[in-house]
């Protein structure tokens, strides 16, 4: 019996010693001796080179795509201490503490990563430094996005999630399993804040109704925006900067499939119109100018000052829809339009074309002006209104005053779409299928005072090989300034219980002769 305590002590000592040995070995990087100079920078996957990082971004992890048996990366800025990361494998995770110190010491300055690889012959190669820059301006610290699979018709697994950009925290806001596998199709925030946001929701397996979830100051309410005269469900939406009005589109979307095209799916709007919802009075209204029966209007977005509603509009190119795709569907080319609006008086002006599809030579969708009003980025594709399913969709910068436009350098040969601005207008996030052409990932770009756009970088992950195995899509990324104050059961419980608030209909497009709605003084 006396031997037992001795044995326990011995085992514990051995465990502590082993842990210490592991730590000690781990704590020292391998010595790089007599490294020969590589004649080029190393290949990194994802590519974190020649780009600009926000000073509040999580440390990037990457794979050094060079053959070797040991890898050492030294990161050094113009100011502050350099630090090293190393691994026997090619996956490198930069440590968060030194990375943050590097960012804070080098705001507005450059830094470089020197990669040394021990080859199969035992000799080291020191590659040319990978150079990057750290911006002065921070990025909004969260993205809210929808995580889904590559879906066709059926959807059963969908999560609205929030990812912190300052670290790797990625949490669920709403899981559709808690709402009968319904759909959360768009989430929209007022001025990049989370005090006022909305989620469009559709029931699926269990009938909890369909409509818009308004989340204001942590309180969730359900609004059914459908009316007899405006029967479509709200889809793409935009908060007026005042927070008083929400513009939304109603879309009758259909999907069909290609037999050989690499992107199998294609979406089409058979009918779409715009309307607005008044948050305080709970009314819905529209104007003939934004809901013409002979045109497809979609993608509403308020200008930064709230004086214009940007939207996209295409003539309906078919007479009647018999089967899918309808005839001439490739003639659905959307113009970029805007219509003046006075939020105080509720007065609408006359719509004007900012950039026509004919001039651009492409269909223009997803207009998003920067919060400072200086820039307007749109997505252009050869035709149609769903660029996420178009391999040739790209982001363009448009001058709203002149209609001049230019393709942004952040585009790849695959789909780029759905961009969202940081509240300081210095950063934007967008969805890209660069590389594989299938899986949407969030990428970030810096835009300087002169409108120069940096090379994009993909969202940093803790696991260097994350993107090599991740089959979920980061869909509809939206930059926000704070975490969302409600989540999970708080939202799901409201969806599952209670009635949807019906809206009043003072005037609709179906009664165009009536005067536009005016708010109470």
């Amino acid at each position, binding site marked *: 019996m006396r031997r037992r305590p001795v044995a326990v002590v011995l085992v514990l000592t051995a465990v502590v010693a082993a842990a210490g040995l592991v730590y000690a070995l781990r704590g020292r990087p391998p010595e790089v001796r007599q490294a020969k100079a590589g004649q080029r920078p190393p290949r990194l996957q994802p590519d974190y080179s020649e780009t600009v990082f926000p000073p509040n971004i999580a440390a990037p992890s990457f794979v050094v795509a060079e053959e070797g048996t040991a890898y050492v990366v030294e990161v050094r800025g113009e100011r502050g201490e350099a630090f090293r990361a190393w691994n026997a494998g090619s996956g490198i995770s930069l440590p968060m503490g030194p990375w943050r110190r590097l960012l804070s010491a080098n705001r507005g300055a450059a830094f470089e990563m020197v990669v040394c690889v021990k080859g199969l012959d035992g000799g080291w190669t020191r590659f040319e430094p990978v150079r990057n820059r750290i911006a002065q301006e921070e990025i909004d610290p969260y993205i809210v996005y929808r995580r889904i699979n590559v879906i066709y018709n059926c959807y059963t697994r969908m999560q609205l999630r929030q990812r912190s950009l300052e670290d790797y925290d990625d949490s669920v806001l709403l899981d559709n399993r808690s709402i009968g596998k319904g759909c959360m199709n768009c989430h929209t925030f007022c001025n990049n804040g989370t005090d006022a946001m909305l989620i469009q929701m559709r029931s699926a397996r269990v009938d909890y109704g369909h409509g818009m979830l308004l989340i204001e100051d942590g309180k969730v309410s359900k609004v059914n925006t459908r009316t007899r005269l405006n029967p479509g469900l709200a889809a793409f939406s935009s908060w007026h900067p005042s927070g008083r009005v929400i513009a939304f589109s109603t879309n009758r979307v259909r999907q069909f499939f290609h037999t050989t095209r690499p992107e199998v799916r294609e979406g089409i709007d058979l009918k779409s119109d715009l309307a607005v919802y008044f948050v305080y009075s709970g009314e819905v209204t529209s104007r003939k100018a934004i809901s013409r029966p002979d045109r497809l209007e979609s993608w509403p977005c308020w200008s930064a000052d709230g004086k214009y509603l940007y939207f996209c509009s295409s003539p309906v190119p078919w007479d009647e829809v018999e089967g899918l795709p309808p005839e001439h569907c490739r003639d659905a080319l959307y113009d970029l339009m805007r219509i003046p609006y006075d939020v105080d008086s509720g007065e609408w002006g006359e719509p004007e074309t900012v950039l026509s599809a004919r001039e651009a030579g492409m269909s223009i969708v997803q207009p998003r002006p920067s919060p400072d009003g200086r820039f307007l980025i749109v997505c252009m594709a050869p035709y149609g209104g769903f660029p996420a399913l178009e391999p040739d969709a790209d982001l363009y910068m448009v001058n709203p005053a002149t209609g001049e436009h230019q393709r942004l350098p952040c585009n790849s040969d695959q789909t780029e779409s759905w961009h969202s601005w940081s509240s300081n207008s210095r950063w934007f996030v967008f969805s890209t299928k660069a590389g594989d052409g299938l899986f949407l990932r969030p990428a970030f770009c810096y835009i300087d005072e002169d409108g120069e756009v940096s090379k994009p970088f993909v969202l940093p992950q803790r696991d260097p090989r994350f993107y090599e195995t991740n*089959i979920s899509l980061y869909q509809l990324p939206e930059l926000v300034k704070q975490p969302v104050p409600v989540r999970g059961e708080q939202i799901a419980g409201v969806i599952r219980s209670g009635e949807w608030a019906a809206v009043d209909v003072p005037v609709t497009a179906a009664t165009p002769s009536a005067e536009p709605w005016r708010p109470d003084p």
Partner: protein
Amino acid sequence: MLASPPQEGEPPAVPAVGRAWRWLWGVLLVAFFLYVRLRVNPAFVYHSYWVQPELSDGVPVFFFSASFLQDFLLRPGGLVEFATAFLGQYHQLAWVGAAFIAALAAALCWEAFVLLKAFGGEPPRVLHLAPVLPLLALYGCYFDPLPDVLALVLALGCACLYVRAGPCAAAGRLLVFLAMLAPLHYAAAGAAVVYALLCVLFELTAGRRRALALLLLALGAAAPYCLGVAWLRVSPAASYGGLLPFHGLDVASENARPLFIRLMGVEAVLHAFYLLAPVYVFVAARLGGMGRRWRLAGAFVLLALAGGICGVHDDEMKGQTAVDYYAYRRMWPEVLENARKVPRGTYGYMFVNCAVNRALYHMGKLGDDMFAYGQGPVGHMLCPDTVPDLRYRDRAWVMQGDLLADLGCVNEAVHMTCEAMEARGNHPRLLELAALCNLANGRTEAARIRLGAAAKSADPVHRARARGLLRRMEEDPLLSDNLQLRHMRAMRVQEDVAGWLTVEQALKLLLAQNGRNRMAFEYLMGFYLIYGRLDDFVAGLGRLDELGYERIPRHYEEALLMYALRTGRMPELGGRRISESTARRFSGFQLGAARHAGRPFAARQLALAEYDDTYMFYHLFLLPPELTQ
């Protein structure tokens, strides 16, 4: 040596269990293990997730990644679900799965033994074996109750620790109770309620501490609310009812609810046993114990029940599962062998029909033998324009992915596989097929990512395959030596057509673009025969030369003879002849049909049963009338 009498404060001595009993229990456990392995087959239990999609939310998958774990950490019961997602994978290795199920049964019996002994004061001889029966019944129905049973095992384990905590003060017992309650609820959700109830019952009966029992009851009732609803913010139903019978009722689709409720009823019996049996043995002990006769009677009842449960083993579901299992593994003779065990006209036969046709094609016998098996317009290809009901679609998507990939409809195969993934989860089986389709389309990077995800799974069958494919892709990114891929590339549609194609349009498109697509040809001919469209069938026969048929397949000959009989002319057969045996059987059938012409339909069918493997028989008796209109 004589045992000393119990001292004051010590529990009374418990009579020991004889060695013979222990041997008997061991033998029963081995018998259970062999029964599970040889009769049930755990690999089929796992595969039944594909065959009975309406009973579950998906096929269990497990990935070695932090994000996969994270999804389980934020809800009560997540840990048990995480563990079962991992352990469940090994059901695919039949012997390992059987050993695991036997271990589970042993744990349930041992826990019952401890509890019954603690409540009744003497060790049970037979009663503690009763939990094996509902377990057998569940596995015999090809329903995997692993998450709920593992949660129950955990809860019972905690209860065993509680009742064996020894004589200590109420405060001490309260601490023991609380120390296990919170972690147990986090790990096993509603199963903690079973634990709390058992502790309460113990204190009310053998423990004789009523005040403590009431306190435990209050704490047991409050814990799921505090820990689950208030802290982890899950719904009350998930916190109180998670991992208990009926908790997944919302998952089961409406048509499957009666079956699901029956299965959950069996699970409820298992749970109820642990609450009722201890009270029963306590009361029996107070009334003077059970006599030898009663024990023997109990043993006989259990044996009879065991025999009954073995008798209700669901052979039809086993047959369906086996067909699907072997079809996925391309073991065609086994598909046909098992297909004969599934009665025609049952709910799942259309899927058997689809697998049989695929097996027959790959064995070069589709045109010869397809009508020797049940045929229907739905089962032939399970396509969206023919599958009659949305509730069948989850299973149809999975099978269509494989079938369409064989046919060369690569994009449509990806489509169906992605639909299947949405319905049944990102299973490595589906990821692998989608990756192969991506490779056939030249999307190497997308394929690499999908295979990378499959390689991160714990699936003992598919992980190694995915890793092997990834290794080969390092040297040959397009896997040009992969036979399945070579076939897909050779057969795939070349011209882009947008829209929704019907079965006929898709098959015609395949043939129009690649006249050597023999599978498309045979499926199109099969389609015409099933629909009784003999004109279209005859028009399509012109491709026999192009496809290099040396002889005319038997069913084609039968259809040609019927066509000739109806129109009075035999089409040009390119020098081929109708075989003598077919001509003879056709004549025999004609004679028989004429002889029994005046008899009722069923009687005629019976009289001509010797021809039930011919197209004539199908055309005359089985062709649905609505198809001929």
